[in-house]
């Protein structure tokens, strides 16, 4: 049963991609129906796996000796992320029906989206590291192609190429780690590696641990790779929701959570993870505070919230980090899709040209505010519970200074969230002519997400149970929802955090009073607008890669005879090595 569901979850979106492509762009209604149908079917298959989750290998294909078996798992972590990818993904697809109406090349769009969703499900469900790498690269390819979907816009193309190059850097880390695992355990299987992790030499484990950290940081847009995600905002908005909430960036956090038990003991690794998470969370919170592009604010907030998850893993709170991932994917999908509706209606992404839109689009305003409050960490929305759990895990097992910085970050989050909501939906109206509320498909996608923001925290107990039951290496204890609630409510840390969040809100409210302080901090603001110089570093990496490629251009004549000569030359070298070696 579970074997079939695993295959369905991965194969249905891919099959859908082929069908959408074959349907052809001249029949958009059929394309819409096919894309929504396949995405929903795969979401149902993924949900069906939830009660059946079990530890260990669930499905295995023997493919001969070269690669090891192609194995798939259906444990809590994998199934949960597959559910997030397919369910949130299918909501993004439903939203696209309205958002992409009348756009050209709908077939390419849907095919890539479905391919993306299937690859993400495959990434989290497979336990053969080589397969994980393949799926990892497919998600990178799809994100590149979707970010550059408007390929006549040079900014979109540049953003796509940047995302591709940055995540490729991470892919190298993953591949190196996978090959090292294979070299020392003789198997690509993650579970085999977890069993033998403590028997491997320490130096080797260190290299792997940091290789995977680089891979995760690049994929999840963590420090110092954080700038590709804001540049990815050129994509159509449902794609942003897909990348930010359902698929791409979760992969890095997933990787860290998956391998946490193996690398836990590596000296310095946990501190490094904490620092990466902390810097990402804090710096991007500041950048979100000064950004004026609605989608950029949300992008920075994604980096920041992912920083919280990474921080939680570094502090040992795998459950807290995964629970925050769940909350985040729901409320961030809601925020992005809401922002999509706003942008679709207002025709601009600049928040300074919005203002007072709430009157014209009350539905979007209401759901957006629900999502924003969750992001800010206001009780009783899901973001509150999971963020408290993250902070508590950090206080209990992590260094105190990191906890304090994260606390300030929580205050900043509240501040920029309020600023964003205010600038878009309230305040002085700017000129807009034909603002309309969201369409039907948009509402269908937004409503369940808003409902989820209000309710997913009730799943804490079941979720903890799922993870604890099916992850033998992670040593987690299952708690009931009630005890989680009790723990959060009674902890003094909660009050502290709430006070800081309140302070953040107050800071925005009383911004007039704080003018002097703001003036003093304007240098910081200018730095933040420039991404603290990391933008330049990342741009440098991208430019260097491109100039190397440019320098290698003369070697590609495009004439077949010369290419064949190159192949022959390589053959001669290989044969020479064989002859001399023998």
């Amino acid at each position, binding site marked *: 049963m579970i074997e079939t569901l695993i295959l369905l979850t991965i194969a249905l979106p891919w099959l859908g991609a082929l069908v959408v492509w074959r349907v052809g762009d001249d029949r958009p209604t059929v394309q819409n129906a096919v894309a929504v149908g396949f995405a929903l079917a795969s979401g149902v298959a993924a949900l069906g796996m939830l009660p059946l989750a079990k530890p260990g290998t669930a499905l295995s294909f023997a493919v001969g000796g070269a690669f090891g078996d192609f194995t798939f798992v259906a444990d809590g972590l994998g199934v949960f992320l597959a559910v997030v990818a397919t369910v949130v993904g299918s909501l993004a697809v439903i939203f696209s029906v309205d958002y992409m109406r009348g756009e050209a090349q709908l077939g390419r769009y849907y095919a890539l989206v479905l391919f993306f969703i299937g690859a993400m499900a495959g990434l989290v469900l497979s336990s053969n590291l080589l397969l994980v790498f393949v799926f990892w690269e497919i998600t990178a390819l799809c994100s590149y192609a979707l970010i550059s979907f408007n390929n006549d816009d040079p900014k979109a193309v540049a953003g796509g190429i940047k995302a591709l190059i940055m995540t490729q850097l991470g892919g190298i880390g993953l591949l190196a780690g996978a090959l090292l695992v294979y070299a020392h355990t003789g198997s690509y299987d993650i579970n085999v590696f977890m069993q033998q992790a403590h028997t491997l030499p320490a130096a080797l484990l260190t290299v792997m641990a940091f290789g995977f950290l680089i891979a995760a940081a690049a994929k999840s847009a963590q420090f110092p790779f954080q700038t590709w995600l804001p540049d990815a905002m050129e994509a159509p908005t449902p794609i942003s929701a897909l990348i930010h909430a359902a698929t791409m960036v979760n992969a890095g956090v997933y990787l860290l959570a998956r391998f946490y038990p193996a690398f836990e003991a590596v000296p310095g690794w946990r501190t490094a993870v904490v620092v990466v998470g902390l810097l990402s969370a804090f710096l991007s919170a500041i950048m979100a505070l000064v950004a004026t592009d609605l989608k950029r604010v949300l992008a920075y907030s994604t980096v920041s919230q992912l920083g919280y998850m990474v921080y939680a893993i570094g502090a040992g709170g795998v459950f807290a980090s995964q629970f925050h991932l769940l909350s985040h994917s729901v409320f961030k999908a809601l925020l992005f899709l809401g922002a999509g509706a706003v942008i679709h209606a207002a025709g601009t992404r600049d928040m300074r040209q919005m203002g007072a839109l709430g009157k014209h689009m009350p539905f979007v305003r209401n759901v957006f505010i629900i999502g924003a409050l969750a992001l800010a960490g206001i009780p009783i929305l899901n973001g509150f519970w999971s963020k408290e759990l993250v902070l508590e895990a950090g206080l209990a097992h992590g260094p105190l200074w990191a906890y304090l910085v994260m606390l300030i970050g929580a205050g900043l989050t509240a501040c920029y969230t309020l600023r964003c909501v205010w600038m878009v939906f309230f305040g002085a109206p700017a000129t807009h002519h034909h603002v309309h509320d969201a369409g039907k498909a948009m509402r269908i996608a937004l409503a369940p997400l808003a409902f989820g923001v209000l309710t997913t925290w009730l799943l804490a107990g079941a979720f903890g149970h799922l993870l604890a039951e099916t992850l033998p290496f992670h040593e987690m204890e299952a708690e009931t929802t009630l005890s989680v609630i009790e723990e959060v409510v009674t902890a003094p840390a909660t009050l502290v955090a709430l006070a800081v969040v309140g302070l953040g809100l107050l800071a925005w409210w009383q911004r007039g009073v704080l003018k002097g302080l703001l003036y003093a901090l304007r240098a910081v603001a200018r730095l933040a607008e420039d991404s603290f110089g990391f933008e330049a570093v990342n741009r440098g990496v991208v430019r260097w890669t491109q100039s190397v490629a440019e320098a290698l*251009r*003369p070697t*590609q*004549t*495009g*004439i*077949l*005879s010369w290419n*064949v*000569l190159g192949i*022959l030359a390589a053959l001669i070298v290989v044969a020479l090595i064989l002859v001399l070696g023998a």
Partner: protein
Amino acid sequence: MQWSFPMIVIVVVLGLLGIGFYGLLIVRNLIKVVVALQVLAKGAMLALVLAGELAGQIYIGDSMAITLIVADTIVAVIGLALAVQVRRHIGSLDIGHLSKLRR
């Protein structure tokens, strides 16, 4: 050294590989390129069968040769399809006219 059958087959294998490589290097007609690839693949096929024979693992050699036949046929199909399309769109089968890369 005796003039035995493995030796003859090896000479054929080397001959086919050489002719195939030489063809790939000098021909200019896209369809001839596919022909040269076919010759090359036949050399490899024969080598696999012979290797299976000499190593005593006939069945593995044979199954790999069959894999090669399938791959080779599809390569021919795709190569010819490309050639036909190139002819339609560019009006020539000459590989010298194909490259549009900046130099």
